[in-house]
């Protein structure tokens, strides 16, 4: 697994590098393609003038999916053991956002209803 096995020859190392690079390039391109797709989808729903609850749901899901795509392919956050630290951080942040933003909308929505 290690990148610097002492007995590795120069040529072998270069080949490994090239392979690594191609894999990463592919990953960026995949991410880009998925992101384009997940953007185009909700935009076209709205552009087509569709409405209803399901459109809102679709917008939300597409956004969520695209965020995951960005995290996975551009920010290289994965479920690997070694990257759990930042995944936990992201999950904690999501919890805080859910509490704060969700709470805000809940409470202000209720106030709006009762006071305006």
């Amino acid at each position, binding site marked *: 697994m290690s990148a610097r096995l002492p007995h590795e020859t120069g040529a072998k190392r270069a080949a490994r590098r090239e392979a690594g690079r191609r894999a990463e390039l592919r990953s960026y391109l995949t991410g880009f393609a998925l992101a384009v797709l997940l953007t185009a989808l909700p935009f076209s729903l709205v552009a087509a003038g569709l409405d209803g609850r399901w459109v809102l749901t679709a917008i939300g899901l597409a956004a969520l999916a695209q965020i995951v795509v960005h995290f996975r392919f551009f920010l290289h956050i994965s479920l690997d053991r070694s990257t759990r630290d930042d995944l936990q951080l992201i999950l904690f*942040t999501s919890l805080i956002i859910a509490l*704060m933003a969700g709470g805000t909308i809940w*409470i202000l929505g*209720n106030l709006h209803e009762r006071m305006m």
Partner: protein
Amino acid sequence: MATDWGTLLFGRLSFDALPFYSAIATAAASLVVVGAIAVVALLTWTGRWGWLWREWLTTLDHKRIGIMYVVLSLVMMSRGIVEGSMMRLQQALALNAPGYLPPEHFAQLFSTHGSIMIFFMAMPFLTGLINFAVPLQIGARDVSFPLLNAISFWLTAGGAGLMMASLVIGKFSTGGWSGYPPYTDATFSPGVGPDYWIVALTLGSIGSTLTGVNIAVTIYKRRCAGLHLMRMPLFCWTALCTAILMIFALPPLTVATGLLAMDRYLGMHFFTNDGGGNMMNFANLFWLFGHPEVYILILPAFGVYSEVVSTFSSKFLYGYKALVAATMCIAVLSFTVWVHHFFTMGQNADINAAFGIATMTIGVPTGVKIFDWIFTMYRGRVRFAVPMLYALAFMMLFVIGGLTGILLANPAIDYQVHNSLFLVAHFHNMLIPGLLFGMLAGYTYWFPKAFGFRLDEWWGRLSWGCWVTGFTLAFMPLYVLGAMGMTRRTVTYDNPAYLPYMIVAAVGAAFLLAALATLVTQLAVSIRRRAALAVPAGDPWNGRTLEWSIPAPAPAYNFAALPVVDQRDPFAQEKKRGEAYRPGFIHTDIEMPRNTGVAFLIGMGGAACGFAVVWHIWWLAIASLLFVVATTIARSFQTDLTETIPASRIARDEARWLRQVRAAEPVGRDDETASRNMGLAEASA
């Protein structure tokens, strides 16, 4: 046209901004000016400018930054306490009479007092203690981002400077520390007051956010070998949780003050009465920050108590894991209760009940902590040193504040006592015996590690006595007054039944002033007696954690060799096994960040920008902003940012210290406060 040029150059600034509107304001402003001149004169007289610049203003050493935070905090505390006492005196005189303070001055006082105490007394104090102690406790040489640390400090200092400036130039907000619009919007407060409030808080909160990042990363990434999270001293745990709270709880404040600034400066309509504004958004945002904030304040104090109770009971901390779990519970729960600050705004009963119950839930882990400290004393050997006295007073008084907190947490009861002096009593009951006693305990506890000598015990006890008496007299009557319906922020009243309580409270405030005075005296006396109080061996309290295993004062690089730890309370175990004070085998060169004036410049640039924004001096605002940006960019082009402390010097320092240790006579705990205590503890505690 001349006037246009004046506006262009000086914005709203004019001679009217000077505080000649009342004798008291003029006097206060003069005091600030005279104080500043005196400091400058003293520095010039003693030729200390170079020293100040080299040793302090440009330092990146976490210990010195920590010390500067505490100094800043003590200076601001002096102002805050004087202001609090002025209000107490006013109210003692204000039965059917105007008293000696006009309403507007009184309103400025509670606004500056609250803002200063929270943002420029409490926050710097706890940040200072964390900065000083955490790297030492985790066996690190510095925090993760020393330059950022210094920038945080200088931004905070810049904010504090603006608070002081508001005393001399212009007026401060009259909207309280929570600054609710629409009162603070341009329609109702067109002056500079709320702008000062916004700008000072913004500088402070940027500083705190960056501190939070810095401390969290330091604790995550800089622990010495073997120091697993579950082996960390409790103070580090509370520092970590506080740091996390800072990272996540300050954004709502930034949003709240930022949007208010948009209203005031650009005529937008976030919180205005008209134009589709909605002040309820502000209340919501402010308390999304405000509630976690009070736990940012209290958690480090809890950490100090954990260290202190264990050390001065000569005993293992009871329930370490429970304390860790309770700390984390408090940190997470603190994000779920903010609505209890505006139960009376109009949302439905279900929401109020949900948040009321969530609020009470925090009482459970808090109570666990208190009982854990109680059982730490159980079957211990309790010594009544000053930090322990603070801890004991804290436990007794804090539960009363907790009880009243639980009362407030019940929406139906809060409908009655909200905005009353009952609430003021509650939060001072948490803030003084809880936070402030903790900070003072920490200050007394770590002082010898910072300066190499202990604080005078007698004056410390006297000060403690004044704090406890003063607090009790000044704030317990407010519970009754609140129950009698007296509102907060009231400059005069007409109910004679309030008067006796008000007089008692004023007497209490006098004790609190005395407490401040004795604290200052203690410092002066200790400096004078520093030879007798010196503890060069570094362990005056028979400490248990890593910071006590190094000399006092701690060297710039903290540890000659980075420690390796295999259990909790590592230094206590080392001493027990007779392995303490062993010289390091090999010393290596140590790279430390080189001093730089960049942080100071950025902080002052930020303050200048803030001042310019307050007074609408746009050229200066733009210039100072550009200056900050340019400084940052220029810094990023600098190389050679570290300096090397050669191994030989480290070996020499260490050898000298070990000689001092060997020369020191070990003292038993009975002699802890005697001058024989050179910082070497007797093996059998």
